C-alpha cells in the first residue's frame, strides 16, 4: 500500500493510503475525541465529536474522512473545542446521565469527555423522551436507554462481530431509539448473551447484570488468561475486586478472538469460586469420604500404586490426563506414567 505523509497538529506523521484521519492519528499516538467510532467497527460519523479542521478550513469527521498526502490536520482549536463542549452538553441534557448511580461506574467514555471538556448538565428545559429501562428480563444484560447516546456501537457490534443482528434503531429524529429484534424485551429476544455490545458500549446504557455489588471499577485488578471452554483459545482479561472475587470477563483484543467472547467466555466462570469446590483431600473409609491431610493422601496413593506395579506390573496402571490442564501438567503426567510407572497407558479426552 502507498505511504502518505501529512501533518497532524503540526507534527509530521505517515500513514497508508485508504486510512482515515482517525486511524493515522491513532497509529501515531494522537487521540482524537470520539464516541461512535470504535476501531473494530465500521464507521458512521454519527457523534460528530471527532470533527477536525483540514487545511485550515473545512471541518470533517476524522473517523470517516480519508487521510490525504500533504494534508494538514488540526485536531483541536478553540472553535472545535466549543463544538465538542456543545455536543457533549446536548448529550448530557438529552439523557439521564447521573454518574452517582450509573452502572457504568466510571467505565464510561462519555463521563471521560465530560470531565476533559468540563461540561456540566444545564438547567435548560429540554424535551426528553423517557425510553426503555429493562433490568429484569435478561440474566446477563441490563439495559437503560436513558443513558444511550445513539452512537450505534451495539448495533454494529451485533451485526459485525457477533453477527446476530439483534439490535437496531427504530423511529426517527428525536424519537429514535434502540430495539432488540422486532421490539422485544432483551430477555425475550434472539440475543445469545455474548456481551460484546456491553463491552463496546461507551456509556452505562448496556451493562452486565453480574457485576453489580462487586466493587467499584477503579478498584478492580486485571489479569489475562485463556478461556477454559472450547479450542478457539480466546484471550480474556479477568477483573477481580479487592476481596479477590471474580467480577467480569472482557475479551482481550490481542488474542485470536480479537476481543470477542461467547456466552461461556463471558459468564461461564462462577464455578471457580463455587462453594462446591473440593478444598481438602478425601479418602474413602468404610464407604464414606473423609477429609485427610495431603501427606496421608499422597502416601496412600503412592503406596498402593507401588504395590499394584510390583504385583501386576506397570501396565496394570493407567492414567487419564486432561485437555483442561496446561501443557506443563500434561507433560508431567505422561512423564510420570512413562518414566516412573513404566507404562504408556496414558491418554486423555481428545476423542470425546
Amino acid at each position, binding site marked *: 500500500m502507498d505511504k502518505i505523509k501529512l501533518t497532524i497538529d503540526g507534527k509530521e506523521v505517515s500513514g497508508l493510503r485508504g486510512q482515515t484521519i482517525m486511524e493515522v492519528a491513532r497509529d501515531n499516538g494522537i487521540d482524537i475525541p470520539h464516541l461512535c467510532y470504535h476501531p473494530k467497527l465500521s464507521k458512521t460519523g454519527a457523534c460528530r465529536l471527532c470533527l477536525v479542521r483540514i487545511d485550515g478550513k473545512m471541518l470533517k469527521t476524522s473517523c470517516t474522512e480519508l487521510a490525504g498526502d500533504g494534508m494538514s490536520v488540526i485536531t483541536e482549536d478553540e472553535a472545535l473545542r466549543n463544538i465538542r463542549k456543545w455536543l457533549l452538553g446536548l448529550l448530557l441534557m438529552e439523557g439521564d446521565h447521573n454518574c452517582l448511580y450509573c452502572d457504568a461506574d466510571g467505565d464510561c467514555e462519555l463521563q471521560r469527555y465530560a470531565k476533559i471538556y468540563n461540561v456540566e448538565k444545564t438547567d435548560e428545559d429540554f424535551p426528553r423522551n423517557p425510553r426503555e429501562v429493562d433490568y429484569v428480563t435478561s440474566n446477563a444484560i441490563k439495559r437503560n436507554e436513558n443513558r444511550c447516546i445513539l452512537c450505534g456501537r451495539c448495533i454494529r457490534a451485533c451485526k459485525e462481530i457477533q453477527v446476530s443482528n439483534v439490535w437496531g434503531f427504530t423511529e426517527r429524529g428525536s424519537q429514535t431509539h434502540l430495539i432488540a429484534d422486532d421490539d422485544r424485551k432483551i430477555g425475550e429476544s434472539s440475543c445469545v448473551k455474548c456481551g460484546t455490545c456491553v463491552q463496546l458500549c461507551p456509556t452505562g446504557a448496556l451493562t452486565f447484570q453480574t457485576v453489580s455489588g462487586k466493587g467499584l471499577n477503579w478498584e478492580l485488578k486485571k489479569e489475562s488468561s*485463556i478461556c477454559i471452554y472450547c479450542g478457539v483459545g480466546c484471550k480474556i482479561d479477568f477483573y477481580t475486586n479487592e476481596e479477590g472475587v471474580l467480577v467480569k470477563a472482557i475479551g482481550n483484543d490481542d488474542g485470536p478472538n480479537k476481543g470477542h467472547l461467547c456466552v461461556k467466555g463471558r459468564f461461564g466462570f462462577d464455578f471457580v469460586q463455587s462453594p462446591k469446590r473440593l478444598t481438602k483431600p478425601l479418602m474413602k473409609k468404610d464407604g464414606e469420604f473423609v477429609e485427610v491431610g495431603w501427606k496421608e493422601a499422597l502416601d496412600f496413593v503412592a503406596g498402593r500404586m507401588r504395590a499394584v506395579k510390583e504385583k501386576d506390573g506397570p501396565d496394570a496402571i493407567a492414567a487419564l490426563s486432561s485437555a483442561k490442564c496446561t501443557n*506443563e501438567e500434561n507433560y508431567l503426567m505422561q512423564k510420570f506414567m512413562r518414566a516412573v510407572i513404566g507404562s504408556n497407558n496414558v491418554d486423555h479426552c481428545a476423542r470425546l
Partner: protein
Amino acid sequence: MIGSNTTENHPVMGSMIKNEVINQQKRLIVIDPRRIELARYADYYFPIKPGTNIAILNGFMHVIVKEGLYDKAFVENRTEGFEDLKKTLEKYTPAYVADICGLDNPDDIVAAARLMASLKPMALYYSMGITQFVSGVNGVKSTANLQMMLGNMGVEGGGVNPLRGQNNVQGACDMGALPATYPAYQPVASEDNKKKFEDAWSVKNLSVKPGLTLMEMMNAAHAGGVKAMYIMGENPVMSDPNQQHVIEALDNLELLVVQDIFLTETAQHAHVVLPSCAFLEKEGTATNTERRVQPMHRVLKPGRLIKDDWWITMQIANRMGADWDYEDAKDIFKEIRKVTPSYAGITYKRIENELIQWPCPTKEHPGTKVLHREAFSRGKGLFTAIEYTPPFEETDREFPLILTTGRILQQFHTGSMSRNSRVLEETAPEGFVEVNPNDAGNLDVADGELVSVSTRRGSIRVKARVVERIKPNAVFIPFHFYESCANRLTVDCLDPVCKIPEYKVCACRVEKIVA
C-alpha cells in the same frame, strides 16, 4: 462446514464465519444432520443422515473428477494414489449418494461440487461430526482427499481445519498425553525415541509397547487387566459412552485416584480424591486449535489446601522413587522445550507479546501459520480410496430412530464447569431430545412432554423438543446433563484405528410415558 455446529460449539469462530458469509459475501456449504444456525446462511445445505459423511464427500469428488474440475497440477506434483481413489469414486454418483444420505435433491450435490471447484482457496472445517464414528479415521481422510484434489492444501485460507473442542486438547496431544507418542508425536515404539527420552529423563527401560487408549483402559479395567487408575481432570462417567459399563469398570479397580476441582460423578467412585487448582488459579500454557501456544496467568488465589495439578503429580512421582524438583510451571516448560522440537523456540517471554503457532524450532523462528506449504510431512500427499461403510448400529423395528449426541451453546461437556455458572445454568438448565414434528406426530408426543428414550444400553427420561431442525427418523440429545444422561444410551464401539467411540449414531426408541 461438515460435522461442526460452529456457532454453538466454537461460537467465536462461528461469528467469524458468519461475518465472512453475511457481511463479506463469502460462499458457504453446510453438511449436518441438524439444520444448525449456519445452514441458514449457506448457499447449499445438505441435511444428511447421521453417519453418511464419507458418502457425500465421495459424491462431491465423483462430480469433481468426472467433470475434470480437480487441480491437475497439485494432484500431479504433490500427491499420490489418485488413480485408486478415482476408481473407487466411480460408483458414487449423485443419485447413489443422495439415496445413502437421505437427500431429496441430487442435483445440489453437483452444483455444490462445482461451486467448490470454482472458488479457490476453499477452507474445510470439521469437528466431532466427522470423527465420532467407527469410520472416523476414514471420514477425516475423506476430507483430506477432497482438499488435496482441489489443491487447497498448504495455502492460507485453505486446508483441512479440525475445530478442537477443549481449550488444551491440542496441547495435551502435543505433550504426549497419548498412549503411542512422546511429546511432539514421537512414537514410543521407536528404539531411537526410547533412547532419546531415557537420556533426557535419566531413566532406564522405557516401554516401547504403545499403551491403552481411554476406552481400552475402561475395557481393561472392566476385565481386570488394569487394576489402578489415576484420573486428572476428566469425568469419564459422564463423558464416555455406555455409562453403565464405565461405572462397572471403575468400581472394579483396586485403586482409583481422581484429581479434580469438584466431586464429579467420576470422583464419587474414587478411593482418593485430590483437590486441584482451577484454570484461573494456575500458571502455564495452553495450545489452541490453530497450534497457538498462549500464556495462562494466575488470576485468583487458590484455597489453602488446593494444589497445582503438576505439584500433586510430582509429589506422587517422588514418593515412587523420582527426584523431581520443579519450582513452577516455567521450570517444566523449559524441559518441554528440550524434548519437543516443535516447541523449542517458544518461551514464556515471547508468548506474552507474540501469537506463535508451532512448529517453532528456534528462538528466532516466527512460528508456522500454514502447514504443508511445500510438502506434506510424509512427502507426497496420499489419497486413500475409501468406501462408505454404515455405522455400527443400524435402526431396526425395535430401535427405529437414529440417536445422535452433542453439545449446546450454554453448556460444556460434562457440565462440571458450566452447570456451576449461574447465567449458563439458568439459561439452559435441563436436557432435551430434539424430535422432528413428523416423528412426534407418529409417537403422539407434544413439545415439552417428558418421554422415555431407550437403546440397547439403557434408558433415560427427558423432555421432548419438537423441532424441524432435526431430520425425520433422527433424534438429538445433548450430553451435559446427568439427570438425562445421553451417554447412558450411546454405544461403545470404536473406530478400529484411533479408537474413537461412535457417539454420533446409535439406534434408539422414543416412547410416550403413560402414567
